[in-house]
């Protein structure tokens, strides 16, 4: 199992976009009529075309639905991150993690219920997300120092903390909520703009971890075969 975590960035995006565009435009002329399924395909493809509009719409107007979906899905991501961190800390032991998953689901349900039916409270939302973020950080710190045996061999183990530290710095924007410059760039926009550049760091960490774990498993299996 040898692969290069640094080598995966390539011109995939341009290729994919070009291929879909060509397919949708030229398939009608190039593929013979009994086989092209042109009219079926137009119906089937209408859904993906809509999907790209959504996230733009969701910040475009501050109506209730858009705001609520923005908040709820943000919280879903944060809570799920904490769950994943716990899962990694305990190396996927199901007897611990199904109860915690149930707890998180119940909490998320209560959060949605209280936000919709009691009070749509930005402060409450913010508190939950900040607390979950800090718990997330603590779980990863635990993993770094008292993880699962051979921590010293994991040279990549600081990379998760690097990502989380930068994320916390970006989150400071959200805490010190400053008014928009030129009516455009406020704290929330800055936060979103900064996190774009942090996403690849997080996947890079997971890639390194996957590489280490998979090679470890392969070695174990080969040792079994020898025995």
């Amino acid at each position: 199992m040898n692969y290069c975590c640094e080598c995966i960035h390539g011109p995939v995006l341009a290729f994919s976009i070009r291929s879909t565009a060509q397919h949708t435009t030229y398939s009608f002329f190039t593929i013979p009529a009994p086989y092209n399924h042109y009219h079926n395909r137009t119906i089937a493809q209408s859904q993906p075309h809509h999907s790209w509009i959504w996230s733009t719409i969701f910040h475009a107007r501050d109506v209730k639905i858009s705001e609520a979906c923005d908040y709820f899905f943000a919280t879903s991501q944060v809570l799920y991150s904490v769950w994943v961190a716990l899962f990694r800390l305990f190396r996927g032991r199901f007897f611990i993690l199904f109860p915690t998953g149930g707890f998180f689901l119940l909490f998320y349900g209560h959060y949605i219920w209280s936000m919709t039916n009691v009070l749509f409270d930005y402060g409450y939302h913010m508190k939950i997300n900040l607390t979950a973020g800090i718990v997330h950080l603590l779980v990863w710190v635990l993993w770094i120092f008292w993880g699962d045996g051979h921590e010293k061999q994991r040279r990549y183990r600081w990379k998760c903390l690097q990502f989380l530290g930068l994320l916390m710095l970006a989150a400071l924007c959200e805490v010190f909520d400053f008014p928009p410059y030129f009516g455009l760039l406020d704290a929330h926009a800055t936060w979103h703009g900064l996190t774009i550049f942090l996403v690849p760091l997080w996947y890079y960490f997971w890639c390194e971890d996957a590489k280490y774990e998979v090679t470890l498993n392969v070695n174990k299996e080969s040792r079994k075969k020898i025995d």
Partner: protein
Amino acid sequence: MLVSSALLVLCACALVIGVSSSPGDRSKYFRSCTAECFTSNNCPKRIPRYRSLLFTGDGIDITRIPYEVPNFLKFFVDQMKWDCHSECRHSCMVDYSKWLEDNNRPVTKFFGKWPFRRISLWGYGIQELLSSLFSLLNGVPHFLYLVFWRDYYAPKGYFMRPWLVFYSVVCVNRYELLL
């Protein structure tokens, strides 16, 4: 499928939400300005909703009634449109912010939001242009990793594989819905 159904449930819940208030919209100027604007422009009292197919009354064959296919995208886009009330609120917000700026007062929020510049794109007035743009861009790496580079960060034989793939799905759902 699961994601889109979850979205619909959440949006159904979101229809019952109240409105948050801020110093901007609590100010006397803003309240009187909006009230005056509503009356002078004859803003409608009730927001029109889609007709329900469940409670059509007794003795009526609902299959005979011509009805519009419920189009959720159309419903959401209609919700996003600027109506009489929102136009009034926006114009009053702009006036009040300008007055504050001219008198060297600090900027205030309106309904929990900063007063943004409205930018017109394809006939729709867009608030928070940069936030929406950056959200879209945030989803792009998650999508790319999910679709093209899944086997690198979550290879077969790695015990986190399904949970990490689902993590990407959650993130894509957050930034680019209904994928």
